[in-house]
């Protein structure tokens, strides 16, 4: 029962669920350059799915293939059960919010939003009603008679959103939806987007290069690199259990240590790292042979920093010297020299106010770094 309820929120875990968007072996080549390289993807109804990656990783090309602006060199795309290769953009049940917004500069806000409905031959009275409802939802009613160039960036972005949503598409494609907004507006809009998605139940596919945006928005993230998916999973999975060094490094930051497996038990693994000299004790078994070269990733916020030696000695701790302190208000970041060449980044929440100018840990302090056996992630790639 509870398992069933769980899977309603996470259809990707249900083996019987029918994906809403199905991408099968899709490749896109531009001349000799392969933008998207034989990818498979299933996106389920009502998901807020993020394609995340650096520039040139193929995420936008994949989105444009879903919209119909690019034709796959090979492979097939299904949307709601229908094969899309012969369907032109103007007949697809998807709408797109463009990175540049692509608002029609010669039309007012109202006319921009009504454009898609007019093309569908919706009755005039219905158009007026739906447009005004939509403008109300994005809080642009007072600006309905303005032209796009008379609006601020945030307002334009909301017009673009309203224009794409008013047709009630089955899928909404968003290309860097928050890219052009300042930080404050971004955060606000992020939550607005999530609310709208919740209200309307439309499947969202978002392209972004901003990992923070992807983390807060999405139900699932696909991390892309060089035209392939590196990892697909929930924000928690991607952050806490990255599959590769690329993902660990791309999402958040991670301290990376290179070492070898020296002990492989049923319920634990020990990895020895040479610089700095540490033994990592990991509290779960792994199917890796002893002696294999591995990388250990530890997130900066998972490391405890203290001037007092931990009570237990042994694994999962090192000593070092503080090279630098970055005081960010809510937290501080420390750069700790812990080996001959290794600098470890640590972030620590400032839970108590410093007395005067003295911080608990300061420049040149000798400190002990330690972490839980469950905090480190072993990576083989």
């Amino acid at each position, binding site marked *: 029962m509870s398992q069933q309820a769980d899977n309603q929120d996470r259809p990707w875990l249900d083996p019987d669920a029918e994906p809403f968007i199905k991408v099968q072996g899709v490749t896109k080549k531009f001349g000799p350059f392969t933008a998207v390289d034989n990818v498979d993807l299933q996106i389920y109804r009502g998901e807020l799915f993020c394609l995340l990656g650096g520039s040139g990783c193929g995420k936008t090309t994949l989105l444009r293939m879903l919209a119909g602006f690019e034709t796959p060199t090979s492979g097939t795309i299904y949307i709601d059960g229908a094969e899309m290769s012969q369907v032109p953009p103007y007949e697809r049940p998807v*709408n797109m919010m463009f990175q540049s917004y*692509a608002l029609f500069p010669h039309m007012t806000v109202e006319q921009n939003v009504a454009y898609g409905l007019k093309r569908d031959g919706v009755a005039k009275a219905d158009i007026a009603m739906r447009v005004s409802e939509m403008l109300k939802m994005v809080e642009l009613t007072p600006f309905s008679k303005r032209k796009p160039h008379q609006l601020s960036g945030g307002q334009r972005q909301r017009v673009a959103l309203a224009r794409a949503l008013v047709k009630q598409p089955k899928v909404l494609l968003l290309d860097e939806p928050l890219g052009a907004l300042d930080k404050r507006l971004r955060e606000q809009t992020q939550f607005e987007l999530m609310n709208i998605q919740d209200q309307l139940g439309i499947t969202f596919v978002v392209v972004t290069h901003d990992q923070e945006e992807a983390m807060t928005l999405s139900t699932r993230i696909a991390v892309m690199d060089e035209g392939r998916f590196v990892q697909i999973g929930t924000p928690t999975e991607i952050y806490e259990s990255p599959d590769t060094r690329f993902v660990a490094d791309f999402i958040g930051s991670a301290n990376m240590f290179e070492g070898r497996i020296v002990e492989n038990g049923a319920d634990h693994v020990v990895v020895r790292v040479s610089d700095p000299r540490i033994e990592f004790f990991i509290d779960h078994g792994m199917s890796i042979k002893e002696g294999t070269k591995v990388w250990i990733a530890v997130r900066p916020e998972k490391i405890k920093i203290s001037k007092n030696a931990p009570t237990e000695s042994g694994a999962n701790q090192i000593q070092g010297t503080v090279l630098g302190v970055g005081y960010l208000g809510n937290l501080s970041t420390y750069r700790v020299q812990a080996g001959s060449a290794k600098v470890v980044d640590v972030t620590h929440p400032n839970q108590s106010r410093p007395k005067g100018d003295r911080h608990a840990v300061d420049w040149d302090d000798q400190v002990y770094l330690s972490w839980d056996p469950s905090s480190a992630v072993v990576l083989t790639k």
Partner: protein
Amino acid sequence: MNDNATAAVDRSERSSMRSLTAVLMQRIQSGWKTLVVGIPNVWLLVFFLAPFFIVLKISLAESIIASPPFSPLVEWSEEGALILQVIFDNFIFLWEDDLYFNTYVNSIKIAIISTVLCLIVGYPIAYGIVRSSSTTKNILLLMIILPFWTSFLLRVYAWMGLLADQGTINSFLIWIGLIEKPIRMLYTEFAVYVGIVYSYVPFMILPLYANMEKLDMSLHEAAADLGARPMTTFLTVTLPMTAPGILAGSLLVFIPAAGEFVIPDLLGGGNVLMIGRVLYNEFNSNHDWPVAAAVAIVLLLILVIPMMLYQHIQSKQAES
């Protein structure tokens, strides 16, 4: 005490000196500004407005046999009084003689049809150039401009050779057996249209190109995404957004086409009445400068109307 006073005077003098130089500097600067803005104004005054008034003055005179062949506008009488002689006869003559009225109508008709033809030919060419890759784009633009490197007159003569009864086109058509007798093309209205469209189509293409170059292609994608078929996208997005280019190009073709002399003279022969030819005849054959000047003034007024309309639309667009 005294010292202090002297110091105060000194200080005030120095500060007034400083303010004086500041004012002087400002004067010089604003002088430069006036000069920079003034030069084009003087240019327009000397080379456009002054000739216009001279022509206007001639149009209000009477044709006499003298040199120059028109009566003076202002004259000292023998009693020493100043006589201003304004004669509107020339304009009344233009209005009363059907020849001139018909010629104006015909000129404007030919100019309008030529403009539309230039638009039909030029629009797809401009669009094609904008959409092609940057190397092809440069080659295509060069090809549009290339004919200007040959004299305009020479190009019109070339068309005479192409269109004549024994010309290249007719010879070719007879040779391949499509026709037996040559088709009459030279000295018809058709030849005039060919000549005007050929000569003026670059003036349509270039402003259209400049306008389309700024077109954001993602707007086409947005329209398609919202359900517009290619034709609808063209009518609702491309066409309204290129309207300024269409307007600019049309004016650049319409205005010179309406007053064209060489093309109707060489390609139309005596069969095509255009105002440019009439003007030429009045000046050179009839030697009636005042009537010729009146013809020119009326033509100018006819052409100023679309110009002002254009200005009006432009300023309205700038406002919104």
